[in-house]
């Protein structure tokens, strides 16, 4: 059982217009086996939270803490965080020139485990996982994300989730841009991994649609860099009906 603990996190970015605060005191605890949904309107800081946990250099932590089983995540480099068990399924996975998926997956797995995976099992695992996510076998020989459609990129993110088996998965708007079929396939992948009982999931989404396939235990509503309200799955249903208006109106007032 692991715990990812975020305490009073303040994060800003430097822009041409100066320093802009984005997260203004976020506190959140996720345990193994739990699924937390973070919902909120555009610009509320959801994705900033995801990128900050993963260690993207653009985001500056002004105060607060993130710990994984008591270890200080903020003092770790990006790759150390991944090796500690954090996985970010990115909203916009980048294309990496010159590196085939096969090579990339094996290199990452080796780095994460500290030893090369047994070739026979690994090849089989990759094939099986790709088939389950309905990713064409020939993707293995293509360069990472190069020429992949938006939906294909998201499936490949979940492929990595299933192969790398992190302690905590942070899904940054994995559902955006997916049609219903792709959404189902991707959700099944997350559920498959989650159901093994060894992973906590932080699901960041703008829409309630994905929550029909991935059932959250907790729902947090993000507005203007803070958690404005939290509750159980019923909160998502309410958002489905009412939208974010009542939250954003409150902020503007």
């Amino acid at each position, binding site marked *: 059982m692991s715990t990812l603990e975020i305490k009073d996190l303040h994060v800003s970015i430097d822009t041409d217009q100066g320093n802009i605060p984005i997260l203004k005191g976020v506190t959140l605890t996720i345990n193994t086996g739990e699924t937390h949904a973070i919902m909120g309107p555009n610009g509320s800081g959801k994705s900033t939270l995801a990128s900050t946990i*993963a260690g993207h250099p653009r985001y500056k932590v002004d105060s607060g803490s993130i710990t994984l089983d008591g270890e200080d995540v903020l003092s770790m480099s990006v*790759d150390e965080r991944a090796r500690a068990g954090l996985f970010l399924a*990115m909203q916009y996975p980048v294309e990496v020139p*010159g*590196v085939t998926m096969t090579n*990339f997956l094996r290199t990452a797995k080796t780095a994460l485990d500290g030893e090369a995976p047994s070739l026979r099992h690994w090849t089989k695992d990759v094939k099986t996982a790709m088939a389950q996510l309905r990713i064409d076998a020939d993707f293995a020989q293509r360069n990472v994300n190069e020429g992949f459609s938006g939906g294909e990129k998201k499936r490949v993110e979940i492929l*990595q989730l299933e192969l790398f088996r992190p302690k905590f998965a942070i899904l940054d708007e994995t559902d955006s841009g997916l049609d219903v079929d792709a959404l189902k396939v991707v959700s099944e992948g997350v559920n498959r991994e989650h159901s093994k009982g060894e992973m906590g999931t932080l699901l960041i989404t703008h829409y309630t649609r994905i929550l029909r396939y991935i059932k959250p235990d907790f729902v947090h509503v993000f507005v203007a860099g803070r958690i404005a309200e939290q509750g159980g799955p019923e909160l998502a249903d309410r958002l489905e009906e009412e939208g974010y208006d009542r939250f954003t109106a409150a902020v503007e007032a």
Partner: protein
Amino acid sequence: MAETTHTEISPDTEGEVTDLGDLDEKARLGAPSGAAASIDGFTEEGESLSADDQGSEQLGLKKHSHGNAPVVPEASRGERRRSFDLADFPSLTGLEEDWRFTPLKRLRGLHTDALTGTAPAVNVTGAGNVTVETVDRSDARLGTAATPEDRVSAAAWNAFSDATVITIPKETVADGEVMVSVTGSTSGAAAQHILIHAEAFSKAVVVLDHTGSVTLAQNVEIIVGDGAELTVVSVQEWDDDAVHVSSQQAKVGRDARYKHVVVSLGGDLVRLTPSSIFTATGAEVEMYGLYFADAGQHLEQRLLVDHAVPNCKSRVTYKGALQGDDAHTVWVGDVLIRKAAEGTDTYETNRNLILTDGARSDSVPNLEIETGLIEGAGHASATGRFDDEHLFYLMARGIPEKDARRLVVRGFLTEVIQQIKVPSLEERLSASVERELAAGNL
């Protein structure tokens, strides 16, 4: 990869021409300034730095302030001067279109001096059924495939004492890779001549393996006979101080298959001008290049594919990596589709990966089309940085920074190495690339 195009790219970089219905009979992409519809300040080789170009009177611009040379811009790449007579090529000033990227000061006299130094030793091994001769410069076969196109090449033609002639006899499949070791041990400006003749329906791989220290002007003539299949690999793994200027012209016969692979890793200044000239129909040419420039290195390649006859196909793929202060690479790819060359199918690509600050990559694809009746013609050029987003993505999967950088560069360059198809050489060059990466602290 971030498709940031760096410098010197003609207006139609990433251009692709498939439908030529609307083009004039002699339409030119990247046309020289002075021609209609040109972009001010650009010539067919990109931004004009040449004194041979007065610029356009558009926007009230006067001719360039440097130099008053008579304006005779090359109207077509096909009209570039070709001659065995050194006197036909004026002394170089560095402002000529085809020399403007080359630091003449670092040529160590190749363009000015008599090339009387000792030529690097040539040793040919690897195939028993291939004829290797050392011949006098009066041998009638020399100069039949190639005519010098620039001053250094003409100087080399006039200075070499004896030449190496490698002949793959008619209908012969070479029983091994022909390894031509060219080993330099002195630095006096020298000339060298090599002729490779793959006779009709023969098949061979010839590797020119350049190592050691030289100041060398070299002409490599290549004849690919009718129906022959020839691969020529030119590897430049010179010592750090070497200066190497090499013209590698191939005449490609009917239904022939010619593959040319350049791998430039070592040397202070390496300038290659590989060309493929189709002389009969049905032939296919592939030209590949890999170059990896470190701090201070100048690696230049200027290609020509001359589609002079119908129904030939060409593909050009050059990839370069750069790291360190003043690492400089130049790639100029000229493709000429002459009026007679109906049914031509051509595409050329150049990609550069800049790994550190302080490096410079020039990439200039040129496509000149004199007939619309072709299968396809296009080119692409992209020069990008290995940027923070790539790094973040790979590191977010647990891969340490150093490994992530190597993963990308290795992958980027492997495509070209894989084209060589000589396993022992592929292995050696992969190891060399690894050493380059290690040297650059990547």
